């Protein structure tokens, strides 16, 4: 009976058909799915490059590829994963889909702008992929000058242009989110009733709007030097070789928080739902997101401790970097405290959330090592840094993204995924991840520099462990891809609220109607009020 009702009911997926209905849609939910498809392809490509890197590093000698190719592989891996996958990942898919619904809005404030931002990501992505097929780029995703502006003989401009264009996608998304949160909240949805996922996406949007233009300016300057030989970064032309690093990290350090803050928002939702409790210290968790966004702009110089900047500048940046540790620690402690006296279930999203907390804790703590001046001198530009940021980006953001995908998949598609396989995937990803990246901390402290195609033989055992882990990790990532697709056709039909969660998104049907709610919602209690939910259920 329920099945029949669901099949007949009109929702955003069956409201219209045909390619045009997707490519010209203004529905934030459909745009989210466009993003989902796009970034999944980018992730697959970035993952393919990572696989080739790990296979090459099985032995100390060059065997699979030449040095030129190896350098292009790690560059394209970084460029794709950072700019085309991680930055858009959670905000553009889960954020796009759920931010409006969670605040009780019909759509984002600017639906056409939202569609435009997807097209910009696609255009930027095509530009970057075009550069790759034309011959690739070998500067590293950090594009340090004067190598990128003068010495590299690869497709720097085309790649950077792609990043430039994709940057506008992220600026527009940020703008859209900010205006939406300010102007589109349902009656009764006060700021302190916002789900924490909304808070964290709001903080992320601030960084996107304020930080990304600096990246655009930096790319333009590299272009000016490369094309017109205007001396900005190359001392041979009268430029300053370190200036680029300041400008690049002024965006790219906050960009780390663009990547991880939305993940923190997802985890707040998951922890609350699967322990049936309001997030402990809601206000502290909400404001810690904003604090991270603000402090993130003050720490870029910690990437330059050995670049020749003054020792006093180094001290200031080290000092400020430790301030970021506090809001991050607050979040971890509050998530843990939320579990206390909770009603904890082990559904797949919660397993991913546990994984996130564990890996983010390790990633965050190793960040303290890098902020310590005396240690950073030794470990910067080694595998220690590589391991650290993969713990944050992959162990943090990607775990949260997968957790969120499992959590909201029933809502997005109206289908349940196979729970057993999903639990297994969470376990495989967690184990594979640690096997891949933990040995890299040891490698880094031993002194193995990053971006090395060939390396001294005594590092081989640890590299082999890392490569073995990467193959486990690859299996862990392929599993959800397969069973999610499988579930679209064969998955059980999802009820409106499969997890007993409190957010507004669970009060509308799965999948939601085009305008999100049959009737405009009115919010009468704060976020994560499970008592009220249960009461309503009993009354209902």
């Amino acid at each position: 009976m329920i099945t029949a009702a669901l099949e007949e009911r009109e929702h955003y997926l069956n409201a219209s058909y045909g390619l045009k209905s997707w490519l010209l849609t203004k529905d934030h939910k459909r745009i989210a799915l466009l993003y989902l498809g796009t970034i999944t392809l980018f992730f697959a490509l970035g993952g393919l490059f990572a696989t080739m890197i790990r296979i090459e590093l099985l032995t100390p000698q060059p065997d699979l590829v030449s040095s030129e190719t190896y350098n292009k592989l790690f560059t394209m891996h970084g460029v794709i994963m950072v700019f085309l996958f991680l930055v858009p990942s959670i905000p553009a898919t889960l954020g796009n889909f759920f931010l409006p619904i969670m605040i009780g809005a019909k759509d984002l404030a600017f639906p056409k702008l939202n569609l435009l931002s997807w097209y910009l990501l696609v255009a930027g992505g095509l530009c970057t992929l075009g550069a790759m097929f034309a011959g690739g780029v070998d500067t590293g995703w950090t594009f340090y000058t004067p190598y990128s502006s003068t010495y590299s003989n690869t497709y720097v401009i085309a790649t950077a242009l792609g990043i430039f264009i994709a940057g506008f996608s992220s600026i527009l998304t940020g703008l859209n989110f900010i205006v939406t949160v300010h102007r589109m909240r349902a009656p009764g949805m006060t700021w302190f009733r916002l789900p924490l996922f909304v808070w964290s996406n709001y903080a992320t949007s601030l960084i996107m709007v304020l930080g990304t233009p600096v990246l655009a300016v930096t790319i333009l300057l590299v272009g000016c030097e490369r094309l017109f030989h205007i001396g900005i970064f190359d001392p041979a032309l009268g430029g300053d070789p370190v200036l680029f690093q300041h400008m690049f990290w002024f965006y790219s350090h906050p960009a780390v928080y663009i990547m991880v803050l939305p993940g923190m928002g997802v985890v707040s939702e998951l922890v609350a739902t699967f322990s049936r409790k309001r997030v402990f210290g809601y206000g502290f968790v909400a404001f810690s997101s904003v604090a991270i966004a603000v402090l993130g702009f003050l720490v870029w110089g910690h990437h330059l401790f050995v670049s020749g900047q003054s020792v006093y500048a180094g001290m200031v940046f080290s000092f400020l970097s430790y301030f970021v540790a506090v809001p991050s620690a607050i979040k971890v402690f509050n998530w843990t405290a939320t579990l206390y006296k909770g009603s904890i279930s082990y559904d797949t999203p919660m397993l991913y959330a546990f994984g996130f907390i564990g890996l983010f804790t390790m990633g965050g703590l190793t960040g303290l090592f890098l902020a310590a001046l005396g240690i950073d001198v030794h470990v910067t530009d080694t595998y220690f840094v590589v391991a650290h940021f993969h713990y944050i980006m992959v162990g943090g953001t990607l775990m949260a993204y997968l957790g969120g995908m499992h959590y909201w998949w029933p809502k997005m598609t109206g289908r349940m995924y196979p729970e057993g396989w999903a639990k297994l995937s969470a376990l495989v990803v967690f184990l594979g991840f640690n096997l891949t990246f933990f040995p890299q901390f040891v490698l880094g402290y031993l002194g193995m520099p990053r971006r090395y195609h060939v390396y001294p033989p005594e590092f081989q055992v640890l590299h082999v462990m890392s490569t073995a882990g990467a193959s486990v990790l690859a299996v862990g990532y392929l599993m959800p891809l397969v069973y999610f697709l499988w579930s679209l056709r064969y998955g059980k039909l999802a009820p409106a609220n499969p997890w007993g969660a409190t957010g507004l998104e669970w009060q509308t049907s799965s999948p939601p109607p085009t305008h999100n709610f049959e009737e405009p919602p009115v919010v009468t209690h704060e976020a994560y009020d499970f008592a009220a939910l249960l009461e309503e259920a009993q009354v209902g």
Partner: protein
Amino acid sequence: MGNRFPLFPVEASTVAPSVDHLLFYLLGVSIFFTVLIFSAIFYFAIKYRRRSETELPPEIHGSTKLEIAWSIIPFGLAMVMFAWGAKVYFEIERPPDDALDVYVVAKQWMWKLQHKEGQREINELHIPLGRAVKLTMTSLDVIHSFYVPDFRTKQDVLPGRYTTTWFKPTRVGKYHLFCAEYCGTKHSGMIGWVYVMEPQDYQAWLSGGAGGGSLAENGQKLFQELACDNCHHMDGHGRCPSLQGVYGSKVLLTNGQTVVADDAYVRESILQPNAKVVSGYQSIMPTFQGLVTEEGVLQLIEYIKSLKTQPGAAPAAAPARGGVQPPAGGAAAQR
């Protein structure tokens, strides 16, 4: 070296133990918090597992006291990391005065090193045990980074600028030298070895080197070849300032500023003479950009340095006006 599966690097310099002690503190703090978080999660997850589908846990909104506690305690521990890290950083960044000078010119993809005594090496550095060694480095092309993991020191090497690093080896042996800043195709081939030798072996090695003359001697030759001495008369009566005793002194400029005549200043004065003109002189010096190599500049610097201590020459005492001692009636009178 011999170890096929090392897990921790050798400590081969005076700063290495300092860095490692700081590491152990951080490891201690990190392991404590990791264990704390992991065990709390496991404990709560098991103890408070969902027992019925309808159960409703008690509402707990939070605790300001706890929030303050878990903000302040980690912050305090982090401030110790900051202060300790800064202390070690100063140790790493500040070379002692008695350090041996070695000059490094990096290029895609090799390290060229020159000892003061004149020995030149490529991708190898021989140094004596127990003596501090200071490297003054520059790059001919892109940014490189001079990294000796067993010494725990690393310093980026920039084009158009000098950076320095130093270390005092404490163990005889052969240690990896890596380029740590990605510099293009053969980045991973820009490697070499640092050989730490017993002082007597080092002396033997020094004297066994090719006798091309010391850096200062080569600098002096270059000084004459480039006809610098046409204008820079050592008696101070030339059209340009005497270089006697200039190195390390304070120099008064035409714009009223004062600079210390260090390596960077001398290099700039050779390559961009008009950037900073000494008070009392006109900017008549042509640029030597393209006429003298970076190695040549370093030789000239060593020569100018040697003028400071040459016995019998004019005293290197700071001139009365704080500028380079101008000639009594020479160039200054030309204005």
